[in-house]
């Protein structure tokens, strides 16, 4: 069964974090919130596996 990966899994977390913050540059709070919602849906579709997504929902509580 697939399992949520919670160990470090990115080659360069700093690069990702910088890109993430940069993607929000110039957005209002409402626009940022909407962007985050879209981002979650895009990533969730990429993951696909409902069991993994449920684990992610728990891990983020």
């Amino acid at each position, binding site marked *: 069964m697939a399992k949520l990966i919670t160990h470090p899994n990115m080659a360069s977390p700093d690069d990702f974090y910088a890109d993430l913050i940069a993607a929000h540059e110039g957005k209002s709070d409402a626009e940022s919130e909407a962007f985050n919602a879209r981002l979650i849906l895009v990533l969730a579709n990429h993951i696909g596996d409902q069991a993994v997504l449920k684990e992610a929902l728990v*891990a983020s509580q």
Partner: protein
Amino acid sequence: MFEDRYSLAFKLYPYKRSADQDADTVVRHPVVVVGGGPIGLATALDLGRQGVPVVLLDDHEGVGMGSRAICFAKRTLDIADRWGCGTAMLDKGVVWNVGRVFQDDRQVFEFNLQPEEGHANPAFINLQQPFFEKFIFEQICEEQRKGAPIEIRGKNRVDHVASFDDHVVLEVATPEGPYTLEAEWVVGCDGASSPLRGMLGLGFEGRVFEDSFLIADIKMTSDDFPTERWFWFEPYFKSGASTLLHKQPDDIWRVDFQIGWDVDRAEELKEENIRRRLDAMLGGDVEYEIVWSSIYTFQCRRMEKFRHGRVLFAGDSAHQVSPFGARGANSGIQDVDNLGWKLGLVVRGIAPEQLLDTYDDERIFAADENILNSTRATEFITPKSKVSHTFRNAVLKLAEQHAFARPMVNSGRLSVPCVYDASPLNGPDDLPDGPEQTRVGSSCKDAPLGDGFLLQQLGDDFAVLALNTEVPTSIQVGDIPVRTVAVATSDESFGALSERYLGAAKSAVYLIRPDQHVAGRWSTFDETAVHAATLKACGRD
């Protein structure tokens, strides 16, 4: 008028009239260094040890007060070892490996910088900058006794500079009046607000960060705080938006509070107000003495080029970073390490002056890496938008439970040596299965060797390191001496050396530059290849 801009921690080189001031014709020196901070002193030391005559001009007579830079990285200690003053620094400094990150009243996680075994130096020491400078100065005195042509002139302030194709003219103010001096080369090490840079009309553009930090160095004897780096995001004691606590020698502790952009400096620096923040943090009954305090703001920026004809800039005068990551003084020392041997070869006529353009190539690459890392740490520590703050706190919250979020916590990416991957001086990387960490362009990794360590045996000249293969006992490439170090990795005592230099390869030959960066590597010794790579590393191909 000649007034001090700051008070001194150590008066080391009082003003003395020099013969140049009474000369009938203007005297020209091979190299003049402007500025007597750590970078200027180190430049004079590196050049003097090579036998290159150097005059250092400083507008003060010694080392300024205040701890300022306190974290000195392994690479800096390795370089200081090459100069002969690493042991003094290590003996006085506080070695630390563990860091803890807190948010509010919770520990988010801890990290251990303990390097792998088999290095002469630790990952970091904490040492007040005045001591660091004093140890470099004492090594200069030692080298002077051995005949090194280094002259330091206190209370010599450069007031005007004119740069020509083959020399530079400096107008120098002293307490006894001005005089004129010429130099074939000038190295500017006069700090972030570099007057020299201003006199040449050179820009220094970058990004201003809108936050102020209050430093309080306090003397206290306490068993409550171990020798660790403690960093709080949004601490429960509310003395700052972030707070750093770090130990220095002599029971001194560095406390650094993030206090916001729009502050009344005079008010914040009143002892009662500093004490209010400290008491909240330490608990009311801890006794301490405030030995130094300061408010700083910072920018991340660099000069477009570090070489301007006959004038070269090093350290803060060339590039400035935020303090997160200890990338200021440590990168300045790497500048000196890079420039020293190149300028030495050029002055002695062994290398063409184009070699100095590679100081630009290599150290601008390094400066950009340092600026990127320190900018990112600053964004994480002082988020500039609501969403950035939300993500920052999400990372901190997740990091308590989940390992994946811990590498995203950024309270400073600590200084590591830059790898000059794209340097025009690089020769072939022709060692199949060779370790990534010692690839061409990287600084040599230390390893135990005989009774000591590898780096101590590489010395100040070009070197060939041969493992499990034959090399001549000495090599001469034209007028460039190349020393050889041959090792047979016969038993497991060579484990670290094998892992760091052989990997899966059976044998290896490394060509190593005077700054102990790898210039080329091969499986076996090929005289023609080593000659060609040595010439290339000197800008002579």
